[in-house]
C-alpha cells in the first residue's frame, strides 16, 4: 500500500498496532550502542585505568574490593548520571521546542534552569539542606519561572517567539538575582553554590541519583502519550483541537513534565546548558521523523552529556572541568551556528 511511509512496516497483534520504521530502529540501536561504549569508557578511565574485563568483573560478587569501590561506588554513579540526566534534558528540550515550534525554545534558553537554580539558592539561603529540600526548591523554582514566562508572554494566545524573548529576559534577570544571592550568602553556602552553579557531576553517589533516576523513569513512561499530543499540537492549536486534543490540558501537562525533568537534573547537577537545545535538533536530522521526537532526543541527549562528561574528566590532564563548562563550550558554537542559520532564514 502506498499509504505506508517509505520503508515502514505495519505490525499488528490483535487490537494493538504500530508502524515500524527501520530508520528509527537503526538509529536508536546505534545511539544506545554508543551510549554503552561511553559508559564502559568512563568506568575504565580515571586516576587508575581499569581494563574493561575488570570493570565488568567489578559488578560480580567475587570482585576485588578496590575495583568494586572504584568502579561501582565511585565511577558508576557519575557515568550513569551523565546518561540519565542527558536523556532527561534531551526529552525536556524536545517538549519545549515542540511547544514553542522554535529551535531556540529550549528550557535552558527560556530560563527554566536558571529559575530552578534560583529555587535552590533560596532554599540554601533559608538554611535548607538535604536532597529533598534542594530538589523541591529546584522544581518549584522551575515551575514558578515557567509560570512567570508564560504569564508575561501570554497575549490571548501563546506565540513561540514571544515566549522565547520573554524567557531570555527573565533568564537574565534571574541570573543576576542568583549572583546577588551568592554574594549575600555565607561563604560556605556561596562556595557550594558556585561549584554547583557551573553544572557538575563530580562527587555524585548512588543516593543522589536514585530520586532523579526513578522520577525520570516514571516520566519517561508517559512519553508515548506525550508524543502523541506533540504530534497533534505541531499542526497548530486549531488542528490539534479538531483532532480531539484538549489543547490547554495537553500543553499544561507537557510544560509540567518538561519543567520537572529539567529541574530534577538541575537540583542534582546544577544548570547544564545546551543539551536540551541541541539534542532535539540533532535527533530530528538524524531520524528524519518530521517531528520532534522525544525518544530520539533523549537518546541523543544521553550521548551528548555522556560524551561531554568524558571530556570534562579527561581532556585536561590533572584538572577536572565541570561538565557544564564543557557543554557551554560545545553548545556555544552550536548556538552561534543556529542563530546565523535562523537569521538567514528570517
Amino acid at each position, binding site marked *: *500500500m*502506498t*499509504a*505506508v*511511509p*517509505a520503508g515502514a512496516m*505495519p*505490525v*499488528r497483534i490483535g*487490537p*494493538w*498496532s*504500530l*508502524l515500524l520504521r527501520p530508520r528509527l530502529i537503526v538509529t536508536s540501536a546505534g545511539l544506545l550502542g554508543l551510549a554503552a561504549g561511553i559508559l564502559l569508557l568512563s568506568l575504565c578511565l580515571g586516576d587508575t585505568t581499569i581494563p574493561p574485563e575488570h570493570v565488568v568483573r567489578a559488578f560480580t560478587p567475587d570482585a576485588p574490593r578496590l575495583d568494586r569501590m572504584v568502579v561501582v561506588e565511585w565511577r558508576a554513579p557519575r557515568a550513569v548520571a551523565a546518561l540519565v540526566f542527558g536523556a532527561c534534558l534531551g526529552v525536556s528540550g524536545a517538549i519545549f521546542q515542540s511547544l514553542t*515550534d522554535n529551535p531556540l525554545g529550549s528550557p535552558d534558553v527560556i530560563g527554566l534552569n536558571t529559575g530552578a537554580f534560583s529555587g535552590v539558592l533560596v532554599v540554601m539561603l533559608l538554611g535548607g539542606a538535604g536532597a529533598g529540600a534542594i530538589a523541591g526548591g529546584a522544581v518549584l523554582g522551575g515551575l514558578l519561572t515557567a509560570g512567570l514566562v508564560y504569564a508575561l508572554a501570554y497575549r*490571548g494566545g501563546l506565540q513561540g517567539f514571544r515566549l522565547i524573548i520573554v524567557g531570555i529576559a527573565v533568564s537574565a534577570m534571574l541570573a543576576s538575582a542568583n549572583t546577588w544571592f551568592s554574594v549575600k550568602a555565607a561563604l560556605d553556602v556561596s562556595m557550594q553554590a558556585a561549584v554547583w552553579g557551573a553544572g557538575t557531576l563530580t562527587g555524585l553517589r548512588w543516593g543522589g541519583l536514585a530520586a532523579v533516576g526513578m522520577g525520570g523513569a516514571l516520566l519517561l513512561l508517559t512519553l*508515548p*502519550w506525550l508524543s*502523541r499530543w506533540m*504530534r*497533534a499540537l*505541531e*499542526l*497548530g*492549536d*486549531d*488542528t490539534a*483541537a*479538531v*483532532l*480531539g*486534543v*484538549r489543547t490547554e490540558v495537553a500543553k499544561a501537562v507537557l510544560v509540567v513534565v518538561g519543567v520537572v525533568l529539567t529541574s530534577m537534573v538541575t537540583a542534582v547537577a546544577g544548570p547544564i546548558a545546551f543539551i536540551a537545545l541541541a539534542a532535539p535538533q540533532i535527533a*530530528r536530522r538524524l531520524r*528524519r521523523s*518530521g*517531528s*520532534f521526537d522525544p525518544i530520539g532526543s533523549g537518546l541523543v541527549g544521553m550521548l551528548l552529556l555522556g560524551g561531554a562528561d568524558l571530556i570534562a574528566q579527561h581532556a585536561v590532564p590533572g584538572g577536572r572541568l565541570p561538565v557544564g563548562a564543557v557543554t557551554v563550550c560545545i553548545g556555544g558554537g552550536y548556538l552561534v551556528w543556529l542563530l546565523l542559520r535562523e537569521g538567514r532564514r528570517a
Partner: protein
Amino acid sequence: MRTPASTVGGAAAGGPSDRLTGMHLRGSALTVAYGPQPAVLHEVSVDIRPGSFTAIIGPNACGKSTLLRSLARVLSPSGGHVLLDGTDIARMRSRELATAMGLLPQQPGVPEGIVVADLVARGRHPHQSVFSRWSREDERAIAVSMERTGILDIAHRSVDTLSGGQRQRVWIAMALAQDTELLLLDEPTTFLDITHQIEVLRLLRELQEAGRTIVAVLHELNQAARFATDVIAMRDGRIIADGAPAELFTPEKMRAVYDLDCRVISDPGTGSPVVLPR
C-alpha cells in the same frame, strides 16, 4: 477500550459514504465578543442542512471564520450553543466530536521536514491510541483519502517542497483521513491559482455528492454560486441572507451584503448565477 473506528456509524466497513446518518449541525444564538470591542458574532443562528455543500460568504471581517470556528468548537462562543444531532458540542467528549467533524483551518502548521504520507496520517489521531497506532482501518482511510485528492504519487515527498495547490490537497487529504461526516474548511481556495481553486472545489463537491456535509468559507462569489448547494451570507457578525444560490445571488441581496452594485446573469453552461459587478 474505545470503539473501533469502523463501527462508529454502524456500518461494518468502508468510508463515511457507507454510513450516512445525516448528522445535523446547528448553531443557535451564537455570540462571540472579545473584550469591549463590538461583538464579532451577534446571536447568529445557522442550520446546516445534512448532505449539503454550504458556502459562507461575506465581506472581510464579517465573522465568517469566527462562525466556522465556533461550529467546530475551536472557539467557545460567549453566548449560544452549537448542537450536533441535538447534543450540545460543548458537552461532547473530544474524541467523539473529532470523529464526527473535521476542520481545515486557514493556515495550519507544517512540521519541518514532514513527508506527505506522515502528515495525512496525522488526521487519524482521534481514531488511534498509544497502543493502536496503525490499524488496517487507519491504513485504508489514509490510502483512500490520498487517492481521492490525487496525491498518491507525491506520498513520499517532503511537504516543504510542494506547491501551494499540492499542499492544499495534502491538507484536505489529512482532513479526509479523519473520516468525519462533517467537513468544515476555512477559505480552502485562498492562495491558490484558478486551476487549483476549481480543482479543490470540484473535489469538495464530489465529497458532498458522496454523502458528506461540507461547510466552507469562500471568497469567490461565482465559485460559491457554481459549487455550493446552500449559501449563507454574512455581514457585521450577522446573517443577512441564506438559501440556495439561485435565491441568494440577486442584485438586491448582493447590495445588502457587500454594498455592491451588480448584475446577475445565468451561466449558459451550468445555469448557475453569475455575479457581474457594475
